[in-house]
């Protein structure tokens, strides 16, 4: 099978924070079924911190594991800290990803950032 690290396999098998926050403060969606991966992050913000982060992912094993890890990394962080979570941070946290799956590691942070930006946008216009 495609060689995933133990950590990736563990998150794939037992993903954390699966779901959709019904009255989310921010929503971020990236990808589409054509390219094979699609992620939706929903967040709940309290006192400038990510009180809750949930994801839905349509995608391969790496995409699911990445979503789970990003949601864990982001939870309880301030918005500024969470926005600083880079693709590189995710990749490091994952321990390793096969070369042809590296693009998945980008999607997770992208979706999270989009959700935060969505929240900030709404705040601004509120």
């Amino acid at each position, binding site marked *: 099978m*495609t060689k995933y690290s133990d950590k990736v396999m563990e998150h794939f*098998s037992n993903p954390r924070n*699966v779901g959709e926050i019904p009255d989310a403060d921010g929503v971020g969606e990236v990808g589409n*079924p054509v390219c*094979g991966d*699609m992620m939706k992050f929903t967040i709940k913000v309290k006192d400038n911190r990510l009180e809750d982060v949930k994801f839905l*992912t*349509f*995608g391969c094993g790496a995409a*699911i594991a990445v979503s789970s890890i990003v949601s864990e990394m982001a939870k309880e962080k301030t918005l500024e800290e969470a926005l600083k979570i880079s693709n590189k941070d995710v990749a490091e946290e994952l321990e390793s990803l096969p070369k042809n799956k590296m693009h998945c590691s980008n999607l997770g942070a992208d979706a999270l950032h989009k959700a935060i930006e969505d929240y900030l946008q709404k705040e601004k216009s509120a």
Partner: protein
Amino acid sequence: MKSINLDYGAAAPVDRAVLEAMMPYFREHYGNPSSGHDLGDKPAEAVAQAREKVAALLGANPEELIFTASASEANNMALKGGAAAYKKKGRHIITSAIEHFSVLNPLRTLEKEGFSVTYLPVDHFGRVDPAQLEEALTPETVLVSIMLANPEIGTIQPIKELAERAKESGAIFHTDATAAAGFVPLDVGELGVDLLTLAGDQLYGPKGSGALFTRRGVRILPLIEGGIQEKGRRAGIENVPAIVGFGEAARLAHENMAERMNRLAGIRDSLKEQLFTAIDHLHLNGHPGQRLPHNLHLSVKFVEGEALLMHLNNAGIYVSSGSTCTSQALKASHVLEAIGLSPELAQGSLLFTLGPENTPEDVPYVVQRLKDTTEKLRKMSPLYQKYLKEGVGSNDQIQ
């Protein structure tokens, strides 16, 4: 842990009797069939017998077979060798959109060399329409290559009708029967094909064995030139054990054809029925009737293939998928695209190819595991959650 292979199209174990037939040719009768002394006798005889056995499977004359090391080699030889032999007559080739890459890629190369290639479309079942072939044929058309059965969606082509059209127009007709040989009765006379590719490893023979049937009188230039093995049509010392194994596998496939077909189709049908009963939103791909007996291809809506495959793998169930993420080239299957499957359904596609070790008892376990996995993945699928909320996305399919 259980281990249920449902991906025998990717590889199958060499049949026990086949391996036994091969064994004496590694160390005992190891000679070179072309030798001028006695050490060549048994190997040469064994190759001749194997040739007869493979010919019998196809209704061909033994001399019409050229042994190769793979189906890919046979396809390359048929196309490049056929194009080179007939290029003075014309430089147009016709094929279908759902051929194996060992047909499509040599054709891309021929295009660079000045040939023009027509890629016939297929219908939603994956069938080529003989009338469309007829329209595409021109006096310049020297070669038509359309596979006998597709290894992915299992659809069987109306080869006899297609070959007839080609013949009427004066073109050579090649069919890639790699996925079909051993699982569908074949007779090159009845089919009317000029060139036919098959491989031993697909019919429980060894890897490294393939052949190109080349009708007497049809000229192709060799791909591998050198010694005069295979009457100068394919150089290199004969891989005697592989050829012997291929022959024995062909004999067994020929003898047990009906029984194998019934057994495999029986398990396949029960797998299909139970899956469609247990799981919602499945989509059958390929032709409902005109398909390989050991092939089942479906799409699990709202989820992605690699994730399905990984969960099944962890449960000891081995399948494959035409999804982007399971392809090493990171491209979704061109076959699924050609039958007009939506990208979403292509991503959720699963290919089951049944084989010798499958039994009816495998079915309930597989069904239960695929059901569990599907539920788990749908729970986290944004597409499924959207469908639950909005009821859309379920019927945006063409069929």
